[in-house]
């Protein structure tokens, strides 16, 4: 049984202000995105008090408003939530707030709040309209690109930097140049790629077909080549992650944020909470039952950690991580595959490789390695023959 001291420290608190999303992406994993419930001030206060009273807060952490479109609620709601957060935070550690948004509802009032409270913003955008609108649609089937672009422009007008998350589908893999142009044209300097995953209600992925890995590697390689050749810097999360992993090989005994109990705390708008991969909240498995382990109004961390079904799940996840380290040469660098992907793809947490691993971890790592080697080789050439190069120029 993991002791409270063996859980956490809390790195990411994901709070669902509402399950509702104003758009209807074809690959969305949220099961309840038509539901317009909202978190109450009472539940929010219980959430913050639960987190700070749990013993999990032992370092600064991020509060991410997500799992529904957070900007469906007005900025004034988050202003009040911020005041509440500050009141409840008796830890002495800083809490950084972050929004993952489709940006379609960003207004000047939102921008004022974001700037004033120094909130981090991530925009979900899948590239130019012909790619974005294939999957990121309204409930009537229309595209959402124009409104997302308006939101991004409004953020820029207010001097707000943001990063983007782009979901790669089979459609996207033929268009690295077009994606690169889109980011440059719209002054996006920090990009992340997710792959279309098999999770929850999204039971099939366009990427789960023969030949995807090769296409993905070619896509990612070309995109990185464009980034590395560009005049303006562009951060690519997956490249940075790979570089960091090379520098910090992980001990097999260590578990990643997603596989360590309560490093992530996910709370839905009714106060139900889970941990591990955020996608698990609100879902259940035939063998595991609900992945919500308690409610912030009534269940203490200590009680949850002592529950047999939590102990069984934690053991299953631990065995999965151990098997990753036993069987996968990438494990020392990724720390073991995300439990959510293992469950949704393999039906069991005590398993290893998934499509998500092959694309988002292995391929990005391999490709990044070739770019680093090429960069290093180029630097060595220049250092070895500066006069020759100068003469050639």
């Amino acid at each position: 049984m993991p002791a409270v001291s063996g859980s956490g420290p809390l790195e990411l608190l994901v709070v669902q202000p509402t399950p509702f999303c104003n758009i209807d992406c074809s690959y969305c994993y949220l099961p309840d995105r038509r539901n317009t419930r909202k978190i109450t001030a009472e539940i929010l206060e219980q959430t913050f008090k639960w987190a700070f009273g749990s013993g999990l807060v032992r370092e600064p952490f991020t509060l991410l408003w997500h799992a529904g479109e957070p900007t469906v609620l007005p900025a004034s709601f988050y202003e009040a939530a911020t005041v509440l957060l500050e009141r409840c935070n008796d830890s002495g550690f800083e809490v950084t707030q972050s929004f993952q948004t489709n940006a379609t509802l960003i207004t000047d009032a939102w921008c004022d709040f974001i700037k004033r409270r120094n909130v981090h913003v991530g925009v979900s955008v899948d590239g130019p309209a012909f790619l974005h609108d294939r999957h990121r649609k309204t409930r009537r089937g229309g595209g959402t690109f124009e409104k997302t672009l308006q939101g991004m422009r409004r953020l820029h007008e207010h001097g707000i930097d943001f990063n983007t998350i782009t979901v790669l589908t089979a459609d996207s893999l033929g268009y690295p140049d077009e994606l690169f142009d889109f980011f440059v044209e719209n002054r996006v300097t920090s990009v992340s790629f997710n792959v279309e995953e098999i999770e929850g209600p999204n039971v099939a992925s366009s990427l789960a077909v023969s030949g995807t890995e090769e296409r993905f590697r070619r896509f990612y390689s070309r995109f990185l080549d464009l980034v590395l050749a560009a005049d303006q810097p562009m951060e690519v999360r997956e490249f940075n992650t790979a570089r960091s992993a090379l520098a910090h090989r992980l001990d097999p005994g260590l578990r990643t944020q997603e596989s360590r109990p309560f490093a992530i705390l996910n709370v839905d708008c009714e106060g139900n909470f889970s941990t591990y991969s955020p996608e698990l909240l609100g879902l259940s498995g035939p063998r595991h039952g609900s992945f919500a382990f308690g409610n912030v109004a009534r269940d203490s961390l200590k009680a949850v950690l002592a529950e047999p079904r939590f102990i069984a799940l934690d053991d299953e996840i631990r065995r999965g991580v151990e098997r990753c380290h036993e069987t996968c040469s990438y494990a020392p660098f990724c720390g073991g595959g995300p439990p959510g992907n293992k469950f949704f793809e393999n039906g069991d947490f005590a398993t290893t490789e998934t499509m998500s691993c092959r694309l988002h971890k292995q391929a990005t790592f391999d490709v990044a390695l070739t770019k680093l080697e090429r960069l290093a080789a180029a630097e060595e050439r220049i250092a070895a023959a500066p006069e020759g190069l100068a003469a050639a120029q």
Partner: protein
Amino acid sequence: MKPAFAIASNFHLDGGWEDRLLVAASDGWRAPREDELAALVAEAPRPHAAALLFVLPAHMRERFWAMLGEQAAEGTGDFVTFAEELREFLAFKALPPPAESVFDLLVQDVGGMVDAAGLWALVNFGDEPLLLDWPGVRLRVGSGEGCRIDPHCLPGIMTPAEEPNVMVAIRQGPAEDRADKLQS
């Protein structure tokens, strides 16, 4: 012989065929009717029997003009490197130029002629559309767009009306030339 027109796989072009194609009429040229479009345009790309339209990314068009600027200013414009980047881009898009193909930078003045012999593709780097001419049908190739051409159905390249045409011609190399002659 009229080609089947199509957008190459892995490319997205804005605008419809009715804005790109012109058909011969008794008093000049006009936009095609729906039935004519259906006859001219292939629903899916047919790699060996089509005039395949494609478009270059903005960063590559910018690189082209930067290269010309460097050439004009200091004589250092590197067309060979640019041509290799263009070849790599088209290869990534599953539209690889023939192995021994030759890339030519062409500027066609008003009244000037372009030899279409051996053409595999043309890329329009000018601001104005490039007009390709087949018997009874013409194709506007917009700025930044290119057209892979069926070597058995070569078009004429219309002389520009005002501004010079600026284009890169990709021609089949000697090996392909010989093969074509043998086939014909």
